[in-house]
């Protein structure tokens, strides 16, 4: 137990260090188009672009020229959004691994599963696990002082566990219009000012970041399955694997679509993930 605690604390410390180290980057990447333009104007020589490059990865590619900027200058001007990716070669390798796993193993298996279990059944299973993870959403809503959301999670849990038969149905949403609020520890860290750290592609789990990965590990402590199978790690892993597999079985085609739209699927998914998570933090 002590060793475990030590490991957890040191992991957290390392994560905090990394997150701290990338604050510089985060400050750079939050430059708006305006700021970049001003900095380019201030240093009319080519060096300024290089400096801007250094500060935030590669904004010069994304930033508009002056003329173009003037035309659309307003509060709708989009921020340049990118995430630090210092271990890109490793991430790309993991991306390829996940891609192959998806097409060679998971997708064929999901096809068979979908054939045996009708969609309604899979939706019910998905809801069951979603209901079970209420503590994650509840605690993180509280931590972010979103008391209304925390309250609606409790109401949802009570209704769906009873009227919704152990959470297999979602009458809270269907009948009472009480919607789920997706909150997790990664978002809680973000809410209190933590940047994402850097980009991580996790085996099987896919896109993540240092912040969200640590959050995901922390959220395990709020999942009932962690305690139900506290002595049987293999069973706990099996249940989690099934939970994720079932969820994927409902989303076959989504990844294919994303891949098809992209010129470079890796960076497309990375940028989308980053924007998606930052938006979640803001919500």
């Amino acid at each position, binding site marked *: 137990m002590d060793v475990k605690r030590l490991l957890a604390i040191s992991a957290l410390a390392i994560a905090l260090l990394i997150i701290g180290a990338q604050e510089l980057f985060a400050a750079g990447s939050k430059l708006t188009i305006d700021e970049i333009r001003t900095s380019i104007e201030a240093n009319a020589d080519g060096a300024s672009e290089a400096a801007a490059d250094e500060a935030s990865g*590669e904004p010069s*590619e*994304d*930033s*508009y*020229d002056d*003329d*173009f900027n003037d035309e*659309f200058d*307003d*509060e*709708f001007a*989009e921020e*340049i*959004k*990118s995430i630090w990716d210092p271990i890109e070669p490793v991430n790309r390798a993991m991306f390829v691994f996940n891609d192959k796993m998806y097409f060679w193993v998971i997708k064929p298996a999901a096809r068979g599963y979908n054939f045996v279990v009708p*969609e309604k059944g899979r*939706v019910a299973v*998905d*809801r069951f696990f979603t209901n079970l993870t209420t503590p994650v959403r509840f605690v993180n809503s509280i931590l972010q002082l979103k008391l209304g959301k925390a309250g609606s999670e409790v109401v949802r849990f009570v209704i769906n566990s009873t009227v919704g038969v152990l959470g297999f149905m*979602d009458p809270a*949403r269907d009948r009472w219009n009480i*919607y*789920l609020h997706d909150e997790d520890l990664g978002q809680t860290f973000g809410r209190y000012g933590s940047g994402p750290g850097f980009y991580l592609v996790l085996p099987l789990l896919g896109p993540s970041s240092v912040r969200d990965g640590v959050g995901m590990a922390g959220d395990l402590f709020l999942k009932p399955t962690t305690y139900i199978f506290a002595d049987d790690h293999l069973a706990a892993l099996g249940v989690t694997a099934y939970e994720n597999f079932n969820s994927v079985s*409902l989303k076959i*085609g989504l990844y294919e*679509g994303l891949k*098809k*739209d*992209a*010129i*470079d699927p890796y*960076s*497309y998914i990375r*940028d*989308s993930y980053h*924007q*998606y998570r*930052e*938006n*979640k933090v*803001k919500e």
Partner: protein
Amino acid sequence: MTSLKFKTTVVLAALCLLLSASNGLAANATDQMKGTIENILSVLQDSSLKGSDKQEERRAKIREAIGKRFDFTEMAKRSLGKHWKKRSPAERKEFAELFADLIEGSYIEKIENYSDEKVIYGNEQVKNNKSKVKTKIISSKGTEISVQYKLLNRSNDYWRVYDIVVEGVSLVSNYRTQFGKSLSSSSYAELVDKLRSKVN
């Protein structure tokens, strides 16, 4: 005297009519967006247009509805960003058409699976000639997707979409990054080739 009164009444009535007519024309962005979405949903729900043998007809109808509301040239321009300026008018036209095909194709492919969705309209933000219309799609599977449309009003209160933001992910800014990366490592011609291979 009475005729003057009569004339005044007629003029006033005509004015009122004109005003109310122009008010009717000046429908806001949400109403216009709603019209387009409902139009698309009705095509998707039309039982006479279901099935793979009706795919072409169905897609043509959706394409028509999208084409009226989406400003693909504006999207292409914004997605290419600073590189747009360097292109000749012919190149711009070609690029915009390719981009339109790409977006249309992927959009239609995605929405074809959704016909029993509920769409909820949120509040609208307007500034000058731009507006944001927030919507939420609730699928029968229970997933909720937030979709935000950014619209531009060029003339006559005719709002057209220049960006779609799905769950916080902006289509235009993502393509801008993609195109920017591609153009920094290879030529414009190669990018066009890549797009063409995506479309066909």
